């Protein structure tokens, strides 16, 4: 079976609550990441690179920035007459109310899923940063004739509530699931990327709706015993964002060449919205070390171990160290930032000093003037 027969579903709001600062004004999917991307770029690009022709993006709240970012899906080549990308806002019938869990949200989009007439549905969240070859996942799924295949990684689980450990039997079959707690060592943790037969998904969603189960993971866990559920190990670069600290650490991990190579492999490019910025300008006296810089920056000061998003200005004498500076933020003369995450369009006036610690980065909100 080819990816042509797979429908992609992305949950743009799942786990919003673990990054309350960054999701105050946006969805998980529209959190800026890696200097020029939004988190949704990764699952969207993965789907497109695997050849999945149709993708539904499920939204719940705060999705204006997401709509602005994905538009009609053009940057991912998903602006199509047939198939392509569809935004699935909450489908609010009097009987439904606001969706709470993923099962609920999927149930609200069940007619879209049915109409796709694909054999399988690939589901993913936006807080998993990876450049995963979904084609391999699809192959594994079909070669095992599985009902559900769940991608997992081996190792210390990410610090995220509701983490699931997969208990694997022979042949990679999932025989049970367990909630991860703080005593879990190295385990096979679910990446919550899974592929499932469409007809089965519809049946499960109807069952869940009548049983008032709103959480999709619980739904799967309840059915592990009598379904053919398999695990698929992802061995490449994969990180799950579970907190602001996570976001900070994982971002800075990209300063290592091997991680960048794994995430931005030329065979599977990561697409994002084009912003038509000019290349970045380095002025006289600029001193940039070990940093990732997007286009449109103007740098006259010092930048070290940091990530600068598009259109950041670093004035003369300013020092930015171990920090993440988002789009269009301005850092004035002789100001110092250390271990700071500074959101979009903020202004740091001259001669200011902001310091966090590497295990407790300071967060400055969008548009704040200091």
């Amino acid at each position, binding site marked *: 079976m080819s990816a042509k027969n797979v429908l992609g579903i992305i949950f743009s709001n799942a786990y919003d609550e673990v990054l309350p600062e960054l999701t105050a004004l946006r969805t998980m999917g529209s959190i800026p990441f890696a200097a*020029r991307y939004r988190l949704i770029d990764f699952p969207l690009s993965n789907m497109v690179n695997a050849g999945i022709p149709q993708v539904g993006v499920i939204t719940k709240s705060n999705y204006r920035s997401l709509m602005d970012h994905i538009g009609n899906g053009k940057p991912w080549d998903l602006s199509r007459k047939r198939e392509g990308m569809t935004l699935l806002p909450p489908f609010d019938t009097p009987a439904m109310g606001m969706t709470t869990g993923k099962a609920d949200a999927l149930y609200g989009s069940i007619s879209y899923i049915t109409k796709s007439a694909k054999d399988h549905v690939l589901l993913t969240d936006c807080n998993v940063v990876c450049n995963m070859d979904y084609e391999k996942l699809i192959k594994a799924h079909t070669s095992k004739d599985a009902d559900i295949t769940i991608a997992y990684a081996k190792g210390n689980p990410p610090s995220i509530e509701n983490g699931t450990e997969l208990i694997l039997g022979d042949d990679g079959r999932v025989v049970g699931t367990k909630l991860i707690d703080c005593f879990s060592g190295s385990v096979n943790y679910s990446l919550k990327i899974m592929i499932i037969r469409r007809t089965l998904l519809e049946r499960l969603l109807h069952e869940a709706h009548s049983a008032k189960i709103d959480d999709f993971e619980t739904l799967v866990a309840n059915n592990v015993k009598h379904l053919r559920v398999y695990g698929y190990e992802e061995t490449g670069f994969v990180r799950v964002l579970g907190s602001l600290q996570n976001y900070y650490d994982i971002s800075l991990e990209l300063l290592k060449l091997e991680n960048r190579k794994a995430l931005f492999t030329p065979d599977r490019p990561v697409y994002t919205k084009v912003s038509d910025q000019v290349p970045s300008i380095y*002025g006289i006296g600029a001193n940039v070390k070990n940093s990732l810089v*997007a286009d449109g920056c103007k740098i006259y000061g010092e930048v070290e171990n940091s990530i600068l998003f598009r259109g950041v200005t670093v004035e003369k004498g300013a020092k930015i160290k171990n920090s993440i500076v988002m789009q269009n933020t301005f850092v004035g003369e002789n100001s110092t930032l250390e271990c700071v995450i500074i959101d979009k369009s903020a202004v740091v006036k001259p001669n200011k000093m902001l310091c966090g610690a590497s295990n407790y980065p300071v967060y400055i909100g969008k548009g704040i003037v200091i």
Partner: protein
Amino acid sequence: MAVKPECIAMLLAGGQGSRLGILTKNIAKPAVPYGGKYRIIDFPLSNCVNSGIYTVGVLTQYQPLELNDYIGNGQPWDLDRANGGVHILSPYQQIKGTEWYKGTANAIYQNINFIERYDPEYVLILSGDHIYKMDYSKMLDFHKEKNADCTIAMLEVPWEEASRFGLMIVNDDGSISEFEEKPKNPRSNKASMGVYIFNWKKLRKYLIEDEAKEGSGNDFGHDVIPAMHGAGERMFAYQFDGYWKDVGTISSLWDANLDLLNPKVDLDLDDDGWKIYSRSPVAPPHYVGANAKVENSMITEGCEIEGDIDFSVLFANVTVEEGAEVKYSIVMPGTVIKKGAVVQYSIVAENAVIEEGAVVGEKPENMKNIEDWGVAVIGNGVTIGKGAKIAPDTMTDSDVGGAE
């Protein structure tokens, strides 16, 4: 047709740009990369869109493959439109035979049918050879206000350079009294920018007449405009001030790129009100390494920099390894400069490889005879071997072995 456009643009993009040598071996001049992420044609195309002109015919002839591919359906410039948009116009076969575009005027003549489909009031003629930001709508207002038949955009150039241009002698009311083509002793410093607005009906008549004329070069500057002027049509000069550069030679292309690093030069590409659009490569942010040193330079997406960069413009996906130096140079997409190599006063085209320890170009101050100095050019996909030396003012179009 829905809304009839008042003015459409015809962009002459068929030129070879032979003075750019190996840089235009396989691509037309308007497709030559410029400014880190642009191509020359991005400027007239973006100017059109920013000026509210959404119907653009692009006339291609010389090596059109890359240009056609680059323009595609015009989406990066917002020119993928149901009504109008960008159209590639190549010479085509007709019942009376096939003809190449013989000259600039003939290229438009052969596409009269295209223009008639839109039946515009005015036609803007542009060339794909220049770097400038210009609001054509203001020029059109001027054209209408003067009730002109033809308006030519004009720029005051330094007197000592004036003899390289087609010049105009202009009356106080802006009307043109005389033309001079590259005179030895210029009487004016008002140079034509090769940007014209015509009343379409008038231009149509003169194009047909010019085509019928025995011995005509079918060129706007040499034939059509003098004919209109001779017949006493209303010809006006519209003054443009701002940055304008013909990037027709290696040294002007090099200069025009380095102009972007000079804050005193009046060419701001970071202008939200007048963006220059381009088809962007898909590449991650650029990375500057722990031992790198980058000053006075322009760097764009996909670059991995571990060496020293000074007064240079790097295009997408350029790699500069540790200990390598890039100074006063333009490095086009995908090129790799290996450890300890030096690239100075050079233009390196796409996907070239400069091996370890190779030296490309020379500082002008190190020359015995400054007359021998010039920018060194490395062609597309060329490999310069380990420790090889490439002299200044040369063009290298095939691989150079290492110095043993």
